[in-house]
C-alpha cells in the first residue's frame, strides 16, 4: 500500500516544493492549512510540528516550506518528503507534506535520486542523429518522469549494442530547478574505432638466459589526435643484431583535415655495442657492411587509411652511422619506405574474438637521398589470434629478403624472446641474414602456454637449415615466463626467458 501511495503521489506531485507550476498558488497566498500525510505527526519533534502548524494563516513562502520538508527528512532519515501545494477557494493554499519510507520503494532503495524528476536527457560524445529514432524516443521518454535507474542502465546497454566501438556511461547531474535532475549519456570512442591507430608501444623488459637483459620503454604523452612518445632503450639486444641504448622521440598526429590521414616523425639517437660473435663473424664476412658505434635516424612518414582495416604508409628513413673502427667516419643509410597494413577484429560474442593482421613493407635506397649503402628490403608478415573464454590460439608467420648491401640494423635475425625461442641468435646467426622465414604456433589456456617455432635465417647463396624449437610457459598479453628447447640443435640446452611487454 505504501509503495502504491508513493507511486501515486509521485505521479501527482512534484517532489520539489519550489517547482513552479501554473496550477499552484503563488508565493504570498495565504495558507489555509498545513498537513502531514504518510506518517503520524507524533513521530516528529514538538518543535517541528509547531513550525509546520505555524504555516497556517501566514503568507505562503516556498523556501520556508522546502526547509520544513528537509527538517522532516533529517529527523526521520528513512523517509523522503514531497510537498503538494493546492489552491483553495478564496485565494488560499493548502500545504501537504507527503511522506514515504525509502524502504517501501525499491527505486528509492536502490538510488535515492529516484525521488527526483528527470528534467532533461543529454548525449555527449555523439551527435543525436547518430542514434536511432527508436532509442532517441526512449531517451526522451525519461523526461518528466522519476528517475528509474534500472531503465537508465538498460538504455546504456542498448546504446552500446547499437553503437559498437563506443563506451557508454551515464551520470546524473542537478537540474536547473531544485528537485530536478539531468541524465547524461556519454559516448567515448574506443581506439578500435579509429581509422588509424597510433604506433604500437615497443615497451618491454626482457631477460634471456643466453642473451641477458634488454629494455625499451616508450612513454606516450597525448590524447585523441596528437601524441608525443619519448622512448628509452637500455642494452636492447632482443630486437636486432646490434645491442643499443639511447633515446627516441616520436610525434604522431592523426588530425590532418580528416581522420583517414596521419603523419609521424621519429628521431632516434642510439649508441651501439656489439657482441664478440658478431664482430668475429663480421671480420670473416667482408661483404657485410661495417658495424657502427652510433646511429642517428630520422623517419618522417604519412599514413592513409584506405578502409577501416587497410592502411598504406610512405616515408623516408635517413640514418647516419658513425663507424665503430674508423670514427668519426660516417656512412649514410637512407631509404624510401612504403607499407601496406591490414588488421581486423571480429567479436562473435562476449567470449569469442578473432583478430587477423597482415602487412607488407619495402625499404629501398633511392637516388637523391645520399645513401652510401644501396639495398632493398622486403618483409611480409601475418598473424591470426582466436580467443574463446580462456583458450587462445596464435598463429604467426613472416618472411623477408634483402638485396644489395643493407646496414646491420636492417638485417634479419631469429632466436630471441619472440622468434625461434630456445635458440641463441648470437650462435645461430650472429650477423643475421638477408633471407628469413619464421612461423610460430602457440596455444594458451588460462595463461599456460605451449608453442612450436620454426624458421630459418640465412644469406642468399649460402646453405640454410630449418630450425625448430618448442617450449612452455606462462604467457599473457603483457607478461611472459618461458622455458624453450631447440629441437634440432647439437645440444639440448634449454633457454629461459621472462619479461613484460606493454
Amino acid at each position, binding site marked *: 500500500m505504501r509503495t502504491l501511495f508513493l507511486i501515486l503521489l509521485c505521479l501527482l506531485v512534484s517532489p520539489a516544493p519550489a517547482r513552479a507550476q501554473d496550477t499552484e498558488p503563488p508565493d504570498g497566498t495565504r495558507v489555509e492549512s498545513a498537513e502531514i500525510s504518510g506518517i503520524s505527526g507524533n513521530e516528529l519533534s514538538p518543535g517541528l510540528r509547531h513550525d509546520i502548524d505555524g504555516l497556517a494563516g501566514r503568507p505562503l513562502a516556498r523556501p520556508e516550506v522546502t526547509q520544513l520538508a528537509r527538517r522532516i527528512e533529517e529527523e526521520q*532519515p528513512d523517509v*523522503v518528503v514531497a510537498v503538494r501545494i493546492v489552491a483553495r477557494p478564496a485565494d488560499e493554499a493548502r500545504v501537504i507534506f507527503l511522506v514515504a519510507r525509502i524502504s517501501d520503494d525499491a527505486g528509492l532503495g536502490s538510488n535515492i535520486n529516484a525521488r*527526483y524528476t528527470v528534467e532533461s536527457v543529454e548525449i555527449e560524445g555523439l551527435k543525436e542523429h547518430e542514434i536511432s529514432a527508436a532509442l532517441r524516443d526512449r531517451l526522451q521518454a525519461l523526461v518528466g518522469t522519476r528517475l528509474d535507474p534500472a531503465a537508465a542502465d538498460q538504455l546504456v546497454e542498448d546504446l552500446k549494442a547499437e553503437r559498437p566501438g563506443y563506451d557508454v556511461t551515464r551520470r546524473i547531474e542537478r537540474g536547473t530547478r531544485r528537485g530536478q535532475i539531468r541524465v547524461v549519456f*556519454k559516448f567515448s570512442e574506443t581506439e578500435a574505432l579509429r581509422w588509424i591507430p597510433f604506433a604500437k608501444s615497443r615497451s618491454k623488459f626482457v631477460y634471456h638466459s643466453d642473451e641477458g637483459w634488454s629494455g625499451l620503454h616508450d*612513454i606516450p604523452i597525448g590524447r585523441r589526435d596528437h601524441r608525443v612518445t619519448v622512448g628509452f632503450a637500455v642494452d636492447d639486444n632482443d630486437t636486432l643484431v646490434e645491442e643499443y641504448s639511447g633515446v627516441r622521440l616520436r610525434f604522431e598526429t592523426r588530425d590532418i583535415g580528416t581522420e583517414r590521414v596521419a603523419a609521424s616523425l621519429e628521431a632516434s639517437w642510439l649508441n651501439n655495442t656489439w657482441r664478440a660473435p658478431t664482430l668475429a663473424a663480421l671480420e670473416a664476412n667482408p661483404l657485410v657492411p661495417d658495424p657502427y658505434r652510433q646511429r642517428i635516424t630520422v623517419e618522417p612518414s604519412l599514413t592513409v587509411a584506405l578502409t577501416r582495416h587497410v592502411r598504406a604508409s610512405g616515408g623516408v628513413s635517413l640514418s647516419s652511422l658513425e663507424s665503430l673502427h674508423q670514427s668519426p667516419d660516417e656512412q649514410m643509410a637512407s631509404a624510401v619506405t612504403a607499407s601496406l597494413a591490414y588488421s581486423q577484429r571480429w567479436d562473435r560474442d562476449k567470449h569469442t574474438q578473432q583478430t587477423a593482421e597482415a602487412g607488407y613493407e619495402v625499404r629501398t635506397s633511392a637516388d637523391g637521398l645520399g645513401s652510401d649503402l644501396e639495398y632493398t628490403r622486403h618483409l611480409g608478415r601475418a598473424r591470426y589470434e582466436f580467443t574463446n573464454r580462456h583458450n587462445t590460439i596464435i598463429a604467426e608467420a613472416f618472411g623477408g629478403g634483402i638485396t644489395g648491401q643493407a646496414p646491420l640494423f636492417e638485417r634479419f635475425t631469429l632466436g630471441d624472446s619472440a622468434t625461434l625461442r630456445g635458440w641463441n641468435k648470437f650462435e645461430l646467426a650472429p650477423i643475421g641474414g638477408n633471407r628469413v622465414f619464421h612461423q610460430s604456433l602457440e596455444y594458451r589456456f588460462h595463461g599456460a602456454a605451449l608453442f612450436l617455432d620454426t624458421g630459418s635465417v640465412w644469406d642468399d647463396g649460402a646453405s640454410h637449415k630449418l630450425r625448430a624449437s618448442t617450449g612452455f610457459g606462462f604467457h599473457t598479453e*603483457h607478461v611472459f615466463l618461458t622455458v624453450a628447447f631447440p629441437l634440432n640443435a647439437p645440444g639440448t640446452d634449454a633457454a629461459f626467458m621472462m619479461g613484460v611487454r606493454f
Partner: protein
Amino acid sequence: MALACAAAPAIADAQSLTVRAAGDMLQVRGTGLRLIEGVVAEHLKDGRSVRVDFEMTILDKAPQGAAITRNRQSFILSFDLWEQRYAVTRAGATPRSISHLAARDAEAWCLENLSLPLAALGRFARDLPFWVRVEYRVQDEPPPAADTDSPFTLRTLIEALSRRRADEALARTFEAGPFRIGN
C-alpha cells in the same frame, strides 16, 4: 537503535573496530573503513548507486582462527545530488534505509547493521576472548576513469600487475581483538 543506546555497553577496543553488546545483539563500530572515497565516491557523485557486500566473522583467535559465527549483509549506497548527503539501504528481506548521512556516518551505519545475536557466540559471549574480522567488497565495480585513449604505460602495467582481480580491487578486510564481553 534504541536498543543499542539502552544497552550497557561491554566494550573492548582494538585498532579501529569496537564491539559492544546491545541488548541480545553484538554490534560493531569502527572508523577508517575508507569505503566512500576515491572511485566509489566519484561513482556515487555521478548519481549512480554502489552495492557493497559486508561480512562479519567472529574468530576464536587471530589471524587464522576458526570461525565461530558470521553474518553477511549487502548495502546499497547512493548520493543525494540535491541534499549532498549519502543514503544507504540494507538489502534483504527486511530492507531498512537511511539518508542525509555524511560519508563516514554512512559507513558507520553499515557496520552497525551487521549485528549478530550474542547467542550465536556460544561460550565466547560469556568469558572467552574472541576476534572480529570485517570484510567488505564493492560489487558494482565503478568503471575506470573514462580515458579510452589512455596508452598502456609502465604505470598502468604496474597497476595491472599489482591488482588481483578487478572485483577484488575494492575490497578490504579489518581484523581486531581480542574482545571480551563482560557480564
